[in-house]
């Protein structure tokens, strides 16, 4: 019987005895957490030391005093040739991409899901298949033709060209379809008896009901949009249109070449700014985010 109280699966055991297995568990978890965290720490450390020191010795053990100076450089001084890609401008573009993508995807997805779930449509099955086939092929497999078409439409270096092609997949639509189907049918009947039309039902009942789902979707989509790399690399060639994540490509190339001292401090600060907003959102809205992520596959 002693074995039963050994397990942590029964947390009701009143006295907690010291056990080696618990120590091992914590040791594994702490090691994991450290491995996750150390690269970020090195990034911050090198961002706070003078570039000459980083170039000679690499990451050290102590934080330097250059962090605010590097932050100022990264935010307000441009790194390219045109003078347009300051950290602040890239931050703005990243925000537009993240927010535009998240809002666009959620609004379009909710509308389509509402039409599919709540209306009698003659070509409903056809529309359904047309939409859900897009779940099968990620943008990466049709990246070049997508680029050619965006170019033909004259959308290179525009926010529309940056955001809209990324929206062309039905992940949000699928997610909301699943959710709408779980909403009790009595609600529609009650609404109809009370004389509510489809628009009123959608805005006054369905949208408020979906609040948590919308929040969860929003976090996932914002992070996804913000972190896009390949597509922005292709469609934005003007430095003024760069996002932070796309800017990483330029930073890497700048670090590589030339005899001058590479600007590690500034580059690292840009990387930190590129990481901070999505990480903060995921940490602060953890429970919504986890719920949305793990329920989207059902």
């Amino acid at each position, binding site marked *: 019987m002693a074995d039963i109280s050994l397990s942590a699966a029964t947390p009701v055991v009143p006295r907690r005895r010291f056990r080696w297995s618990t120590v091992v568990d914590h040791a594994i978890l702490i090691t994991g957490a450290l491995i996750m965290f150390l690269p970020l720490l090195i990034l911050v450390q090198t961002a706070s030391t003078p570039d000459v020191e980083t170039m000679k010795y*690499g990451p050290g053990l102590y934080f330097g005093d250059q962090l605010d100076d590097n932050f100022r450089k990264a935010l307000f001084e441009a790194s390219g040739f045109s003078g347009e890609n300051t950290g602040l401008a890239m931050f703005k573009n990243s925000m537009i991409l993240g927010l535009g993508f998240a809002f666009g995807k959620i609004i379009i997805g909710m509308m389509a899901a509402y039409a599919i779930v709540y209306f009698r449509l003659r070509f409903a099955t056809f529309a359904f298949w047309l*939409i859900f086939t897009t779940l099968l*092929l990620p943008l990466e497999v049709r990246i070049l033709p997508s680029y050619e078409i965006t170019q033909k439409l004259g959308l290179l270096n525009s926010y529309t060209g940056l955001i809209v092609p990324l929206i062309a997949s039905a992940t949000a639509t699928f997610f909301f379809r699943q959710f709408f189907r779980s909403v009790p049918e009595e609600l*529609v009947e009650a609404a109809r008896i009370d004389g509510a039309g489809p628009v009123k039902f959608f805005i006054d009942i369905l949208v408020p009901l979906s609040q948590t789902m919308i929040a969860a979707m929003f976090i996932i989509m914002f992070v996804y949009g913000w*972190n896009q*790399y390949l597509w922005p690399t292709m469609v934005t060639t003007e430095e003024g249109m760069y996002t932070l*994540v796309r800017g990483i490509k330029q930073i890497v190339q700048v670090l590589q070449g030339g005899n001058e001292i590479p600007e590690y401090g500034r580059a690292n600060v840009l990387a930190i700014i590129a990481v901070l907003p999505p990480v903060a959102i995921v940490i602060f809205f953890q429970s919504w985010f986890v719920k949305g992520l793990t329920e989207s596959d059902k």
Partner: protein
Amino acid sequence: MKRAGFASRWLPILLLVPQLSIILVFFYWPAAYAVKSSFYLQDPFGFGQTFVGLENYASLSKSAEYFKVTNFTVIFTVLVTFFSLALALLLAVKADKVIRGARTYRTLLMWVYAVAPPVAGFMGLLLFNQRWGPLTEFFGSLGWDFNLRADYFDTAFAMVVVSVWKQVPVNFIFFLSGLQSIPKSVREAALIDNRSASGRFWDVTFPLLAPTGFFLLIINITYALFDTFGVIDTLVQGEPGNNPMTLVYKVYVDGFRGNDLGGSSAQSVVLMVLVLALTVFQFRMVEKRIHYT
């Protein structure tokens, strides 16, 4: 559709128009365009194109380089998928078990989900820096002269390490939520039946996690095939040279840099078929899974 639906005629069409028009222009058109271009040979100077039938596919199947890239992609995908799943499962089982600090561990182990792959690659550049990278120094002390970008194997190693680091958190989140959804009664029953913790894990917990694991398997394969682009591009600093690359990276290099639209499109089509096969396989397995539970 719900039984109690609305009968409006124009409203649903209006609601579907934005979604349908976007996917027609930016999904079906490019997909069809890729299939069509794969049968043509693009003039390198932009003067039209000639129909060549299956020639692009034929030269692809004969290309030694394409074979090498495919080979690397398979090995890379297997390694990344295996290690990110295994490490995440280990961490999730431990995080599910500990009583103290469970929430803190969850936060500390999942935040990397939000790090963009190229930024992860950028951190990799610091860690594997030729002169002073902490990992390079560590390997050096073990007698391994680590050489990122100069040595094929070392570069591949760095790509796998960074890609796994980036993917573990996603798997961790799914495994942890899978573990937490196992009913208490099942755990208690297992506790009575089976005395050893590892026995309980393999006989009860692991099979119950199988659906999550299978779903994650597909997610991870897709990740290794497509989303690692940023990691790879950053680690080779935009200049692939003789370094390893994945199939998607080659599509980009051949089509965007090399201007070989036909060859690149043929590669795209091959990838599309691959992903479709994967998805069909997934759906069939999911159907089976529903029968059992």
